[in-house]
């Protein structure tokens, strides 16, 4: 294949010797200009050690095992002895924002090509030495092998020659049968041993001489400012060094630090006590009016009227008014907090006009940009080191806390670690939005579905970046609203305005959480109303196997998660297949023989992965409901690391269960009413289903995402299962509100 345009690969010996292979067109120009700063992805040392750079952040998805596997596979390196180096934040690595379930699908070819170039160069060098045709050589386990003559040579012994070989203009990637790691179910968990022994380094674990700790009293209401404060009682506490005022951010808030007062101390305990002792009064500002109860009423009123049409096919208004019967329902989902187990933390050292940071970030380049903004330092003088992340879920793509650490270090002239408490994390998050949806279906005289209207309103992520934005951007609406296939003659999707009063952010699977909830719950209601099986209803709405066109969707274009529809089509055959697969696994057709449990089904495609879920719920002796068993079938195309993909899907089930059962953030007076895990509840071990069955398709389709797509179908499947068991139709979550769990 021809090398993709983004890739420019170059092998050369450097002072350390060996073979360096990178990507990115800039390398050549910089090298020519004399400043050598390659975006090295792989280095083969003269000692034979293969070093692979992981440019994305590890947060449990296994990226530090998966991305190196792409390179090692093509290179023929022994993955177990590869040294993995975590990249600092630097544009030369391309997009490093570990977000959108995109690490594999965006870099699949480029990283494999880097490995393949190394293989070709090593083989060429060995072939010259052996006087054989390079095409008859291959690599495996860190050796170049010529099987005809049973000769092999270690990378260490041929890499000097290889570094002098002219890099190939194009490389051929391995056929599936030749792959050793890609598609494996047994890739090692790189950081597993360090995690199990407490040695793994997370955001708050970095040690520096003279390191001070900062705990920040943030404005309780977004946009609020300090009216007055008295730091004296805080400064009286042993270990507290100083109290520093942080500048108030200006809307739109983007990734700016929130402002407030930082207590700088010798240790975390002193900083926490100091913060408690601070006396501060605030001007809360306009957002103090934010009240979740009245806000929901407003949102409900909004979607009961006409909204902005974002998707339209046929003549929905006419079809709806001419329908023989109609069905309608409204659904609500509350704000959610990401609540990664590791609250945000960052250590910064600003010294001599340079800044070095160690932090748990999904987005080191954006961290660099935020630091530049708060310190005035040029990005080139800001080094962002990425530690392991104790969970991210989208929270750690937003580096406000990294900016705080850099600002404070600059201010106090010492290294500073900012430690967010759990209360900071839950109260001051970039919250998942809160949504109200209204779905309407029109049926003709024969009970056939002829019209579908779907209205949604939610304060959009757009508001965090554009002050006053009230409608979802194209990319937000494309998550389920614009792209869910509906084989119905008349379809209209509308978006109504909702003004944001808190920072809205993306949380694992983002708007697919609510779109999938509304659509799948309504399909279940339709099935009940029409007295057909929910699976039959779902398949009927998706329609026959085909690639859904923009025209059929009723859209002029869709972002499609950054891919052309030709590359990543809306392929209904694959969607139907996961539904067939999951229902077969769960014994869906025979579920009547299991009267103690209610079964619910849901399907959703997101991030180029189609996922179907069946949930069985059961009544406990206490009368409360429990998720007893879950089946999940996913087709994410070619999956590189099956073991981690499976663990992501297992985790997505528990994550979706938290959404369905327990989690909500509500506001009163603009202040979050939940602040720790007593109020903001998550699933715990006793909630975990007796069994979770995961089936991930094995195929050669283009790779899709696996980190997020498991989440959206879980909550609607649970709610549909509750209906199947109890006959009670629930149109909002969490179920704990209704006392059901």
């Amino acid at each position, binding site marked *: 294949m021809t090398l993709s345009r983004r890739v420019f690969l170059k092998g050369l010996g450097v002072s350390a010797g060996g073979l360096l292979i990178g990507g990115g067109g800039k390398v050549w120009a910089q090298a020519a200009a004399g400043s050598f700063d390659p975006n090295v992805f792989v280095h083969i040392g003269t000692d034979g050690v293969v070093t692979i750079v992981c440019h994305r952040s590890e947060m449990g998805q296994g990226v530090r095992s998966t991305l190196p596997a792409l390179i090692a596979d093509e290179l023929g390196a022994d993955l177990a002895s590869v040294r993995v180096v975590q990249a600092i934040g630097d544009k030369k690595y391309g997009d490093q924002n570990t977000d959108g379930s995109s690490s594999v699908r965006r870099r699949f070819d480029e990283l494999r090509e880097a490995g393949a170039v190394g293989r070709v160069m090593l083989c060429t060098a060995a072939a010259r030495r052996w006087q054989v045709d390079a095409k008859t050589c291959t690599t495996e386990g860190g050796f170049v092998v010529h099987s005809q003559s049973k000769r092999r040579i270690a990378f260490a012994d041929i890499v000097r020659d290889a570094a002098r070989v002219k890099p190939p203009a194009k490389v051929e990637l391995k056929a599936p049968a030749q792959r050793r790691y890609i598609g494996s179910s047994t890739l090692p*968990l790189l950081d597993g041993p360090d995690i199990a022994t407490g040695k793994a380094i997370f955001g708050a674990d970095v040690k520096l001489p003279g390191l001070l700790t900062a705990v920040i009293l943030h404005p309780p209401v977004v946009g609020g400012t300090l009216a007055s404060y008295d730091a004296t009682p805080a400064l009286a506490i042993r270990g507290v060094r100083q109290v520093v005022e942080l500048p108030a951010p200006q809307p739109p808030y983007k990734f700016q630090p929130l402002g407030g007062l930082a207590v700088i101390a010798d*240790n975390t*305990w002193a900083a926490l006590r100091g913060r408690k002792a601070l006396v501060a009064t605030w001007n809360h500002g306009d957002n103090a009016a934010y009240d979740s109860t009245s806000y929901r009423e407003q949102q409900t009123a909004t979607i009961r009227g006409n909204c902005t049409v974002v998707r339209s096919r046929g003549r929905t208004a006419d079809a709806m008014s001419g329908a023989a019967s109609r069905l309608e329902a409204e659904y609500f989902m509350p704000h959610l907090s990401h609540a990664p*187990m590791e609250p945000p933390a960052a250590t910064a050292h600003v010294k001599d006009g340079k800044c070095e940071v160690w932090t748990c970030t999904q987005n080191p380049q954006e961290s660099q940009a935020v630091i530049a903004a708060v310190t005035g330092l040029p990005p080139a003088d800001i080094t962002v080191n990425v530690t392991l992340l104790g969970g991210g879920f989208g929270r750690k793509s937003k580096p406000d806390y990294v900016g705080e650490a850099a600002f404070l270090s600059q201010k106090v002239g010492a290294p500073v670690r900012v430690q967010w408490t759990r209360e900071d994390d839950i109260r001051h998050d970039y919250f998942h939005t809160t949504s109200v949806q209204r779905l309407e279906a029109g049926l003709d005289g024969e009970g056939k579905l002829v019209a579908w209207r779907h209205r949604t309103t939610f304060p959009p992520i757009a508001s965090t970046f554009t002050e006053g934005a009230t409608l979802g951007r194209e990319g937000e609406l494309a998550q389920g609203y614009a792209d869910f296939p509906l084989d119905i003659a008349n379809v209209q999707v509308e978006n109504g305005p909702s003004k944001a009063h808190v920072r809205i952010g993306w949380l694992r699977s983002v708007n697919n959480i609510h779109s999938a909830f509304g659509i799948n719950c309504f399909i279940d209601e339709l099935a009940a109303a029409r007295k057909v099986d929910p699976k039959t209803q779902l398949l009927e709405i998706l329609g026959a196997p085909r690639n859904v066109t923009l025209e059929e969707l009723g859209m002029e274009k869709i972002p499609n998660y950054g891919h052309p529809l030709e590359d990543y089509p809306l392929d209904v055959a694959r969607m139907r297949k996961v539904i067939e697969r999951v229902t077969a696994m769960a014994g869906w057709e025979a579920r009547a023989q299991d009267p103690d449990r209610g079964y619910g089904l849901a399907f959703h495609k997101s991030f180029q992965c189609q996922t179907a879920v069946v949930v069985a719920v059961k009544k406990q002796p206490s009368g409360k409901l429990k998720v007893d068993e879950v089946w999940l079938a996913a087709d994410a195309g070619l999956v590189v690391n099956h073991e981690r993909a499976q663990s992501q899907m297992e985790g997505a089930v528990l994550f979706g269960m938290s959404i369905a059962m327990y989690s909500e953030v509500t506001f009163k007076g603009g202040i979050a009413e939940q602040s720790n895990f007593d109020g903001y509840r998550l699933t715990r071990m006793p909630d975990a289903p007796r069994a979770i069955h995961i089936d991930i398709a094995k195929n050669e389709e283009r790779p899709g995402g696996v980190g997020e797509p498991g989440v959206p179908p879980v909550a609607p499947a649970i709610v549909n299962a509750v209906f199947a068991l109890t006959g009670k139709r629930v149109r909002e979550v969490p179920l704990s509100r209704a006392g059901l769990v």
Partner: protein
Amino acid sequence: MIQLTINGVAHELDVDPEMPLLWVLRDVLGLTGTKYGCGEALCGACTVHLDGHAVRACVTPVRRASAKAVTSIEGLSADGSHPLQKAWTEMGVPQCGFCQAGQLMTAAALLAKNPQPTPTDIDRSLAGNLCRCGAYNRIRAAIQKVAVETKQP
């Protein structure tokens, strides 16, 4: 001065006796394997052993640990060879890994007292340890595996 024995090593520390053991371990002694997750004994990420009992270090004033044997994740085994640690890596239990020190310490205390726990015993013992990644089923399976393997014939 507070006298402490941590992972078999004696320490004498000049710290506020009310300082939670968590911050003594992390900030004073540099033992960062024990994690801060909530500060209110709601998540279990900070679980350590006090004379073999699982406690939440975030709400345990260091004075309470004085004259007792404290074990943190760094001391669960010298070399990662505790059967639970081995099962954790073999079965791919951790995702992000942040909660796992606490999960392991709670599980180790459970098995020390109750080497053959029922699934209900496991659920009850681990109910205080949150895992946002949702590794619960693998945690449960890993504990059961160790219990089966250590069963006396």
